[in-house]
């Protein structure tokens, strides 16, 4: 049952991912990307990570993609449909090939032992996914968390300064 479900969702994920780069109309690309995010959220659900799924939809599909769609609509890129970027194709092929090599290298290496870590499905079901994330975020990873918040604050201030004509 789960394997069938995974196969369907994974196929849609890959297909919509391909659609993102092949669609000529930027809006259709953006819509495909939203579909990809949804499929990834579905995969998170099957991995017993509902919090990740909800946040994936909330942040990526709901907030970031709205801004991207917004920009596409405002710029009205329709007129540029049909122009070809041959350089991007070459660079993309090289990067894609390198990624493929890396992936095979990773899979063939013996670093994947198959041993289970501390956080198993039982632990997630017992304590709760959200609680586990919160616990590690506010204990083990407190410093990176705070640094990220300061980084975001700096970005916000920068955005305000850049967009204001007169301060």
């Amino acid at each position: 049952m789960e394997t069938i479900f995974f196969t369907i969702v994974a196929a849609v994920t890959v297909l919509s991912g391909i659609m993102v780069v092949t669609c000529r109309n930027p809006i259709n690309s953006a819509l495909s990307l939203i579909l990809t995010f949804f499929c990834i959220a579905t995969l998170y659900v099957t991995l017993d990570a509902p919090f990740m799924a909800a946040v994936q939809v909330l942040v990526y599909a709901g907030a970031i993609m709205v801004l991207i769609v917004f920009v596409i609509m405002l710029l009205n890129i329709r007129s540029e449909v049909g122009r070809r970027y041959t350089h991007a194709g070459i660079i993309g092929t090289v990067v894609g090939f390198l990624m493929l090599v890396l992936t095979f290298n990773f899979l063939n290496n013996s670093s994947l032992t198959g041993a289970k870590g501390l956080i198993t499905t039982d632990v997630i079901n017992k304590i709760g996914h959200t609680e586990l994330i919160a616990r590690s975020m506010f204990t083990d990873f407190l410093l990176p968390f705070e640094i990220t918040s300061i980084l975001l604050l700096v970005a916000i201030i920068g955005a305000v300064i850049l967009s204001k004509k007169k301060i």
Partner: protein
Amino acid sequence: MGFELFGLPMIYYIAMIVKVLVVFVFVLLTVAYATYAERKIIGHMQVRLGPMRTGWHGLLQPIADGIKLFFKEEIVPSQSDKFAFLLAPIIALIPAFIGFAVIPFGDTIEVMGYKIPLQIAAFYDTAAGKVVDLNVGVLYILALASVGVYGIVLAGWASNSKYSLLGGLRSSAQMISYELAAGLAIISVFMMSESLSLQKIVADQAGFGWYAFKQPLAFILFFICSIAEINRTPFDLPEAETELVSGFCTEYSSMKYAMFFMAEYANMVTVCAVTTTLFLGGWHGPGFLPGWVWFIAKVYFLIFVCMWIRATYPRYRYDQLMRLGWKVFLPLTLLNIVVTGLIAR
């Protein structure tokens, strides 16, 4: 009923389908009669009678409207993006309806020895002896609300009309702004209940321990932000008739227009149901009536309040709306979180 499917008794699946059907039909009926109630209530508030001709006191008006919209000519603008134009009403309608999956609308009932919780996305775990529901229910609703924006944005863009585009842009900016404040307002509820599961949040409010009393500021802010998020008066800027014809749905006609209309009212019902669940004790109430009656009564009261607000307040100006969202509501919700963190426990 000994038959099992994927390790769960058959009645589990039957109960699920029955719950989905009952809730869906009930919400559809509520949506249809909300349009009638709105016209009636606003009519009486403005010393008019509202619809009177179709049926007794106009009771058949929603059905007549539905049939009329169904038989209207379907117009697709020739310069529009056909696919997105078709997709937009669907994207607007679906999130508005599936939000109900996680809302608990009554106590657990017993059918043929099986305990069935009155919540679609939940089942009774006999081994643990408790109801298991989606443990991020609130985030699910917030996520759906954020997806609903696409319907409006796409409708505005695909119509290839300046009024539609302006309406769509306005609305998406408005929804993103108020989504943030609404999300922050309910964080104080999570802090009190220590859970994201709606079952747990409702259980915490038993015996009039409603979060509306414990978190009055969060309650008011969340309700106002929700009204703004679903584009209702006084925040219905996207369809301000005097400036934008009818905003993002200017080019829509027939059933596609009706779908936007239904989405708007379904959103209103969802928002009222969520507010009831988070702040007004969900289905809890004095014991002489079953839980689902209390739930429906509270939701209908909030819907009435929405219509009352519409009849009372004039529309905001766009800059006023943005200022209110970012400079008043957002700091207030942040302050509320800090105060809750200091006082609660």
